[in-house]
């Protein structure tokens, strides 16, 4: 089973991330049993069926997906993943920030795709608490990178008060 960093521990990942194959339509995509992360388009079109399902279901968002679309569905989603097709595409950081701070999502927020140790600190701060580091890299290194810095100036999901509000008066 693939590995996942979840709440600062390396764990086995039982979730399967589903992608639309060429020619496959979101309305008719067949959802296999077991815990799955479906593309946003599939969630939007199969929402009612998916909510009725026995196995857990989550959604993954690409960089262009608008998180407001699932703002009313958050209670049904134990896991939301944000996919980074390339680590240099930083839109997912704003997606995470919006899900946590604007829409108040409290479930598992997972970074998937081109997730590397050098982005871990930032990813964690904007609200990710689960990470699928790229399979060819050392997962322990990624875990350690969560603590690259002990100091932060600005507020974010993790430590929402900027430094100037935390200083001793």
């Amino acid at each position: 089973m693939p590995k996942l960093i979840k709440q600062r521990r390396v764990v086995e990942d039982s979730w399967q991330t589903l992608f639309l194959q060429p020619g496959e339509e979101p309305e008719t995509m067949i959802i296999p049993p077991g815990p799955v992360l479906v593309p946003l388009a599939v969630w939007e079109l199969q929402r009612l069926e998916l909510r009725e399902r026995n196995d857990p279901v989550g959604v993954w968002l690409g960089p262009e997906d608008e998180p407001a679309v699932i703002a009313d569905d958050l209670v049904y989603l134990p896991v939301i993943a944000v996919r980074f097709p390339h680590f240099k595409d930083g839109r997912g950081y704003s997606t995470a920030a919006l899900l946590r701070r604007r829409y108040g999502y409290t479930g598992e927020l997972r970074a998937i795709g081109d997730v590397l140790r050098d982005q871990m600190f930032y990813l964690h701060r904007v609200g990710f608490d689960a990470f699928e580091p790229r399979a060819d890299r050392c997962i322990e290194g990624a875990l350690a990178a969560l603590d690259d810095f002990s100091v932060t100036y600005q507020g974010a999901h993790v430590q929402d008060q900027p430094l100037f509000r935390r200083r001793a008066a």
Partner: protein
Amino acid sequence: MYRYDDYDRTLVRERVAQFRNQTERFLAGQLSVEEFRFLRVQNGLYIQRHAPMLRIAVPYGLLSSTQLRGLAHVARRYDRGYGHFTTRLNFQLNWPELPRVPDILAELAEVEMHAIQTSGNCIRNTTVDPLAGVGHREVADPRPWAEIIRQWSTLHPEFAYLPRKFKIAVSGGPDDDANVRIHDMGFQLVRRDDELGFRVWVGGGLGRTPILAQVINGFLPWQHLITYAEAVMRVYNRFGRRDNPFKARIKILVKALGAEEFARQVEAEWAHTKYGPATLTQTEVDRVSAYFTQPPYQTSLPATDGALDQARRNDKAFDRWVENSVHAHRVVGYVAVTLSLKAPGRRPGDITSEQLESVAGLAERFSFGEVRITQTQNIILPDIRCADLYLLWQELVHLGLATPATGLLTDITCCPGGDLCELANARSVPIANGIQALFTDQNTVEDIGELKLNISGCMNACGHHHVGHIGVLGVDKQGKEFYQVTLGGAWGMEAALGKVIGPSLAANDVPGAVSRIVEHYRSIRNPGERFIDTLRRAGVDGFKAEAYRNVSPAEQEREAVNA
């Protein structure tokens, strides 16, 4: 001047450790070339034509004597004993060795310096007016706000992988010597009734598609500086183009949406975060401002100094230098002084370790131990007693830092260009030196008066050629170096983008063309009229005809074919 506290010190040291680890992993083959590229540029490290280049931040252009000595030390120990001040308030080392860069950064951290976010698609070093805190017409000192922005933007988790680089300027008042209009986002301090706030500009930038910033908020009360900036950044991070790096700057997004629509989206975003924890407090602004209080000026100095006047009368060279290098100061009996890094025949902006150390000593002796770096690649000593000017000048002459050219034609702003820069289309320094060589007569240069001449070696416009009254841009024509000339650019609140006057010129023809353009100005100007004003009044055609007058027809024809 701002001093690090334990938080700053810890953060910069942890950043050095992180970068050391990244460098080691790269050297061990655990990071790909591309992955390391994105990581190293966020710490100012380029791989250049001949060697790596390390870009060190000079936050909003301020340096202490200790920091000057620190730069001198790393330049000597890890490089060839000199470095280069850029138009973007950075200090560049041209020949460091990659495995030793973490050691350089560790040494810099000891003098409260770093290379964090001096490159890469993130928020860069903030620019302020070079005479911040001493200028006459200042509404408020921009430096505390720039320091607040520095802290907020340093390792900002949401905005480290923007579509493209992002540059911010804060200007202290109506003159805008920070050039907010050529920055991605600019904050211009304004007062409304008794309230302090900012006029907010966005969408400026030079490069391939030069655009001047537009106002998206006429008055932003100071408390909201950071929440508003975050709203701008978030709209840009989410909706800025990422499919084409040449269209990825915020200016393209603002242009595509229109400033009004962009402002509306920012407002909509801001509505959610306004009054949030990032709202600034008076306590914080006071805390940061306390680092930028006035130095202990001598009070009740005379406005004029008899000895100074006498020295000027007796020493023509000194008089010239005073005329061209000294700026008015808010405190009676003091002036600010430009130390010119434009000695003819040298690379503009270059400085040796010995010079850096000497400047550190002079700053301590005469100017409370602080200097400023300018966007025109010079150094300013901000607080000089008039009575010390003659002594100071003699020292500067000795150091080669007293070229009396500030603000004049030979004070050329020029990027490193093809001699060093990997991205260059053409060399820029030989053009600057060639023009300087045609204007060796100081009387002529002074007679020409205020004239900004800017040279860039490629589209990236590090030499800010678009906003030079005369701009020169290196272009590559089938492997040969050619140069486009632009006229009519300007800085600050009168900012304008220069227009290309015609086919590009061979390197040999550029100094002559500049010279004829300038001669034309002298022949048609009204008494007291600046170059830029004559150009605006008379139009570009006459200048253009002069520029091409002596260029060999073969050259022009070949150009036309290639154009």
